[in-house]
């Protein structure tokens, strides 16, 4: 007490010198500015994409959005062609990634010894770290000739099936890691109770752990779907270009993302003011909205899974 009054009398604040206080304030402001800048980035994304997409819609006749296929340079912007392409590629990808990813997760979480887990998880992460353009090359030069065309001889060199399979391969690690987290979060007591009742390992895994982790598993599938919808380079390399509307996965085709890359890298440079150029932003807007809805939904499930225990 005597010291404090002495300090106050001498005009010395316990907070330190004014210089130290100023430094504290500046550091805080800089950090706060960085955090707020992330909001500015989002605002920029929404603003640029939305403004140019609206501009695009006002420039074209709305009937141009329906046609025989996606031919932006001829002024035919049949969005359904790309939505169908996206649906085909994403469905094939998830038909592969969901069972393979979930089975891997069950093995790593319920069966693997700690040593196996320590070896296998990094390998899955390496698979996740392969650039997607490399998987596109793999789909074009291995999956198509050695697998898809062996099964279906009528498949074209560029086809959506091979692209879908490669996107699925890329999505396996995401499904596996998110659902494995969910299964590992299930309390050990539930497993012990199950074994105590005489249940076998398979019964415990499938009828106790799996249902208990279902929120996290649903989240994994939704987030992987969103990732597959947004996957670009695999499709751009392996599926060719979107043309006439088709439901056949063995045909060449394109997704919203691959159409954007092909537009931007097309041999005839798209000029800055044409409607074809601005269709990029319209596609970007659709993609943004679809993935945002999926991500928010997936996040909600992740949070539910966390609250469960």
């Amino acid at each position, binding site marked *: 007490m005597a010291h404090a009054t002495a300090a106050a009398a001498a005009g010395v604040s316990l907070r330190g010198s004014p210089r130290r206080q100023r430094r504290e304030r500046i550091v805080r402001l800089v950090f706060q500015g960085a955090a707020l800048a992330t909001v500015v980035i989002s605002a920029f994304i929404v603003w640029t994409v939305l403004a140019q997409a609206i501009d695009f819609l006002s420039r074209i006749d709305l009937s141009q959005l329906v046609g025989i296929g996606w031919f932006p340079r001829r002024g035919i912007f049949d969005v359904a062609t790309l939505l169908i392409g996206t649906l085909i590629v994403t469905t094939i990808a998830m038909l592969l990634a969901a069972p393979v990813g979930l089975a891997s997760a069950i093995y790593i979480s319920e069966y693997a010894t700690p040593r196996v887990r320590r070896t296998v998880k990094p390998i899955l992460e390496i698979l996740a*770290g392969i650039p997607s353009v490399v998987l596109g090359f793999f789909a074009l030069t291995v999956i198509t000739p050695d697998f898809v065309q062996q099964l279906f001889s009528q498949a074209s060199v560029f086809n959506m099936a091979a692209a879908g399979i490669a996107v699925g391969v890329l999505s396996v690690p995401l499904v596996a890691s998110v659902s494995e987290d969910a299964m590992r979060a299930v309390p050990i007591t539930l497993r012990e109770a199950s074994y105590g009742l005489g249940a076998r390992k398979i019964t415990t895994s499938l009828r106790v752990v799996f249902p208990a982790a279902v929120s996290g598993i649903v989240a994994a599938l939704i987030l992987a779907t969103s990732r597959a919808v947004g996957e670009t380079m695999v499709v751009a*390399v392996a599926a060719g270009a979107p043309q006439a509307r088709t439901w056949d996965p063995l045909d060449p085709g394109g997704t919203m993302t691959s159409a954007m890359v092909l537009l*931007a890298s097309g041999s005839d440079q798209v000029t800055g003011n044409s409607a074809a150029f601005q269709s990029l932003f319209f596609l970007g807007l659709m993609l943004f909205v679809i993935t945002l809805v999926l991500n928010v939904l997936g996040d909600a499930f992740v949070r539910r899974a966390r609250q469960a225990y």
Partner: protein
Amino acid sequence: MTTVARSAQAAGASVQDGLSRRRRDVPGTLFLILLLGSLLFSLAILFILLADVLTKASPVFAERGADFLTAPLSSNPSKAGVGQGIIGTAILGVIVALTAFPFGIATATYLEEYARDSRLTRFIQVNIRNLAGVPSVVYGLLGLSVFVALFESLGLGNGRNVLAGGATLAVLVLPIVIITSIEALRAVPNSIREAGYGVGASRWEVTRHLVLPAAAPGVLTGTVLALSRALGETAPLVLAGAVLGSFSADVSKVLTGSYTALPAIVYDWSRKPQDAFRADAAAAIVVLLAITLLANAIAIYLRNRYERTS
């Protein structure tokens, strides 16, 4: 009495029999095979991919050796090399490291060490999570309409330069840097902070001298992973103008002139009809994978080491 004892004995024997007699658990074994098969499928794909790329690339490296690594772009597959791509990818990496890392770590530090749990803080956190899920092509649109336009208006060439590409990639990986840094900061025990405040340190002093050094391995892992992701990205670069251009020979125009990067080269060569370019593409992939997988492996190694010691 004896009947009871006898039936108890019989029951005991039956239970013991049920517990000890080995029965083959057919569905259980099949299930285990199924699980292992799924896991091996992923590993096999990874193995086949690497083996295939190496096989296709080996003639290129055998015939041309280091020439392939230094040669400029060319329309002749037997003369084309990835020299320009390596320079471009290296510059992009430096730009991402210099911008996204400090920015991301500052944001994470603010959210974990400074911010109160207010509505604004929670909004920023949700926003960052959503940014992490935005497809990379959409960042390309941002790069095209913000960074390219900005650098063009500043008079730096036509704006489609390596600075715009680097800025686009930096924004793309920023959410990943922030999220992994937040996790690393959260893992620092509170007792360390309390000890710092206890000896009269200010918030910045505690953060600078105690929390950040303790979180450094985790932060480093996250940033290396983010860098590896950035170097493998193609779509945002293609949208923001990294079509195959060669760097200017004039050093003062390297940053503002045309450019290219390894993944963009892989993309271009994979689409070329000549088979010779397929081999070149495979060789370029080997170089790209060597860079990104090396970064990944370093990050995973760092994390495993860190996890075991803490």
